[in-house]
């Protein structure tokens, strides 16, 4: 195997380093991007990228790829497992329609030129399961975000206004779960679900605790910023999937107002499409995207991702257990409820997005509105896989954001309800190729706090995608079919300097790293010991048996704060 690569004559787009479609060569050695001088005298493999687009590997900052939710989804949806995906060649079997097997997830990402993906909701008590599954996903680098927003410890410290102990607890939890950052799902609402309810505003009191969603969110932001974690608080807002919820989303976004961070946002609001509904019922529902976009654009410390629905099959799986029950009642589809003791819960419901269904068409339109109306430096492209559909359709979203003509064609196929209930038909914006590259690479890497990802500067990880698309010639407004096709299947995917995909075929299998964040050095771990011992009497496991040891992971990568 070659230690060094020379990617020759490609047309590079590298937004982080200000490279806008320039013909240049990229050099790789020992898994990193290096100066040309570094590869002199090496056994260099030359890749001819003439007239091709060279970019950093894609970074998916929010997907559900491992853990008890997707696995329960697979169990309750045998019909998803009848599709054999003939992409694995001589590697392992890859099966699944939208809910893929673990190997298929890695292979499909690699095929599309994506090289990192983050599991966005790890039930802390299910951490071992999540890591076992992450370790079964080949090709990509990974990490998991444990959920904190309904954990009794968090309620307790927020109630006591004890930020020091909250920080210590976060550090303890990230270490025990080998987690990367702080995810919050419907804060307080999942605890209310334990009593059959939900919270309806940021100021509702959580049953049995003297705390509100507002206090939970702001305390967690404060704690995360004081700990200086790589990634900010990553929130799935309250009132997801409820008409009228866009106001709660805006209120939540504004909670970031009092905080700042030089390197990144202080709050990432996820799959906003599901939280951007105006109106007061499913009959009067309309888009709240424009108002949300105004708020996000007016702030310099908040980012979002789209949660774009893709027409066809999907499976709703979130840590938002009360929402999942509502969805089950709404659609009549199968439902599974998951409980994670004093930490929260989750639910799973199968779903199909139909273009002629007014609500589905509106959801589709809202996702695109968010992608188009929000500043490209603040919105990341996601489908919230598999909630909005397959991640394999990211190229569809990329092409749609760049072409009004493509959107006009698609608008003709969907329910006319979107014409009156959303602004999508009136939006003329066409994102530039460079912006879409940013939204799928450099922006998510910055939001996650991974300086070595999402760009092609010297020192970056050699995660590179080469597409059969010449950015100097392509007319992204009109040649959307070509754009879609090019991004569906990479000519080359290079991961840590290894060629995994060549001419669209998988040629090598690679096991990526699992990042986790160790902040234990910044706190006094002794401070919460009595609390842990006290509270673990409510758990089904003993404190000493809780968590995941680093040596159990295939390729752990500890980031010390």
């Amino acid at each position, binding site marked *: 195997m070659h230690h060094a690569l020379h990617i020759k004559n490609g047309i590079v787009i590298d937004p982080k380093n200000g490279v806008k479609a320039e013909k240049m060569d990229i050099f790789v050695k020992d898994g990193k991007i290096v100066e040309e001088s570094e590869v002199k005298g090496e056994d260099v493999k030359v890749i001819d990228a003439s007239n091709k687009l060279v970019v950093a590997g894609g970074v998916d900052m929010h997907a559900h790829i491992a853990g008890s939710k997707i696995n329960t989804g697979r169990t309750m*949806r*045998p*019909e*998803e497992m009848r599709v054999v995906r003939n992409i694995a060649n001589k590697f392992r079997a890859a099966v699944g329609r939208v809910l893929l097997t673990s190997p298929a997830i890695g292979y499909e990402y690699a095929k599309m030129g994506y090289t990192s993906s983050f599991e966005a909701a790890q039930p802390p008590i299910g951490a071992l399961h999540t890591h076992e599954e992450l370790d079964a996903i080949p090709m990509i680098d990974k990490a998991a975000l444990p959920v904190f927003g309904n954990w009794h410890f968090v309620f307790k410290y927020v109630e006591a206004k004890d930020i020091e102990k909250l920080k210590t607890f976060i550090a303890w939890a990230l270490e025990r779960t080998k987690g990367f950052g702080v995810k919050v799902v419907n804060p307080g609402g999942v605890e209310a679900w334990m009593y059959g309810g939900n919270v309806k505003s940021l100021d509702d009191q959580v049953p049995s605790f003297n705390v509100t969603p507002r206090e939970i969110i702001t305390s967690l932001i404060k704690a995360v910023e004081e700990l200086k974690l790589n990634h900010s608080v990553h929130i799935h807002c309250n009132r997801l999937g409820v008409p009228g919820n866009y106001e709660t989303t805006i209120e939540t976004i504004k909670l970031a107002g009092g905080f700042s961070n030089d390197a990144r946002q202080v709050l990432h609001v996820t799959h906003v499409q599901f939280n951007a509904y105006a109106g007061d019922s499913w009959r009067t529902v309309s888009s709240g995207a424009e108002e949300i976009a105004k708020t996000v654009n007016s702030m310099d410390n908040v980012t979002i991702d789209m949660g774009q629905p893709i027409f066809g099959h999907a499976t709703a799986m979130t840590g938002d257990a009360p929402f999942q029950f509502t969805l089950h009642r709404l659609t009549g589809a199968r439902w599974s409820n998951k409980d994670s003791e004093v930490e929260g819960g989750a639910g799973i419901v199968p779903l199909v997005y139909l273009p002629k269904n007014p609500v589905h068409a509106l959801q589709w339109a809202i996702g695109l509105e968010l992608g188009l109306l929000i500043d490209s430096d603040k919105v990341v492209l996601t489908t919230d896989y598999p909630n909005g559909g397959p991640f394999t359709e990211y190229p569809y979203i990329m092409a749609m954001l760049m072409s009004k003509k493509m959107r006009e064609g698609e608008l003709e196929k969907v329910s006319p309800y979107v014409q009156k209930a959303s602004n999508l038909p009136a939006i003329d914006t066409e994102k530039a190729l460079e912006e879409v590259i940013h939204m799928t690479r450099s922006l998510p890497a910055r939001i996650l706090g991974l300086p070595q990802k999402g760009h092609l500067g010297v020192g970056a990880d050699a995660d590179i995608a080469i597409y059969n698309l010449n950015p100097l010639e392509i007319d992204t407004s009109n040649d959307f079919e070509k754009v879609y096709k090019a991004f569906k299947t990479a000519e080359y995917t290079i991961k840590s300097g290894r060629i995994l995909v060549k001419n669209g075929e998988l040629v090598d299998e690679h096991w990526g790293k699992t990042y986790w964040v160790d902040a234990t050095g910044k706190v006094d771990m002794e401070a919460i010991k009595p609390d842990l011992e006290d509270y673990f009497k409510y758990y089904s496991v003993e404190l000493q048996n809780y968590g995941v040891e680093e040596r159990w992971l295939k390729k752990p990568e500890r980031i010390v704060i």
Partner: protein
Amino acid sequence: MIIIKPKTEFVVTVEAELTPDLAEKDVEEIKKFKVYYGKDVVELGELFEVTKEGDDKRLVLDGDFSRVKWIGCRMSDGEIVVKGSVGANCGAYMAGGKIVIEGDADDWLGAEMKDGEIVVKGDAANLVGCAYYGDATGMSGGKITIEGNAGNYIGEKMAGGEIEIKGNAGDFIGTEMKGGTIIIHGNCGFVGGDMKAGEIKIGGEFELVPTFVKQEDAWVGDVNVKGEGVVRKL
């Protein structure tokens, strides 16, 4: 008409979506038809002898096909005659034509079939005319006749068509049934769980789930799912 005969006794199961469409091809082409033998893809001609007599759309499967799955899958016209027994999934998703099985049929006979006819001279195993796991609708049209007995799960999620069993059947008859008719001349076990619509007629003894309401000459339910299915004595 083509005649297909197994060359050997199969060590592992064969998956072969043989339909009468094959009879329209020439013998050499038919022999190249791809089938699975265990995990390996092989040509039909490697496992079976193939001969052709005339051009009618008819397949005669001469011998023991009890380890050959998916016979007649998705067929839409023509006829298949099986001289022996067949493996699982025979006539699955079938949309037309006729299958006659002189021996026994294994599980999933006529699963999700839409139209056409299946006749079994011997017995059928479980899951006749059912929906595959995870799917919402089983058999929706056509007719399945079983001269002998059948196993458990008959017509689960069935929405149309008719299943007639001349002998006895097992448990779970017409579970989540939405339409169509099941006729059992002999005895059977539990009937009608979560039944929404359709009709089940039984000649012998049977056990009805308790959530049916007795009416003049029939029971109506399953009230658990506000069902209006009808179960009556033949």
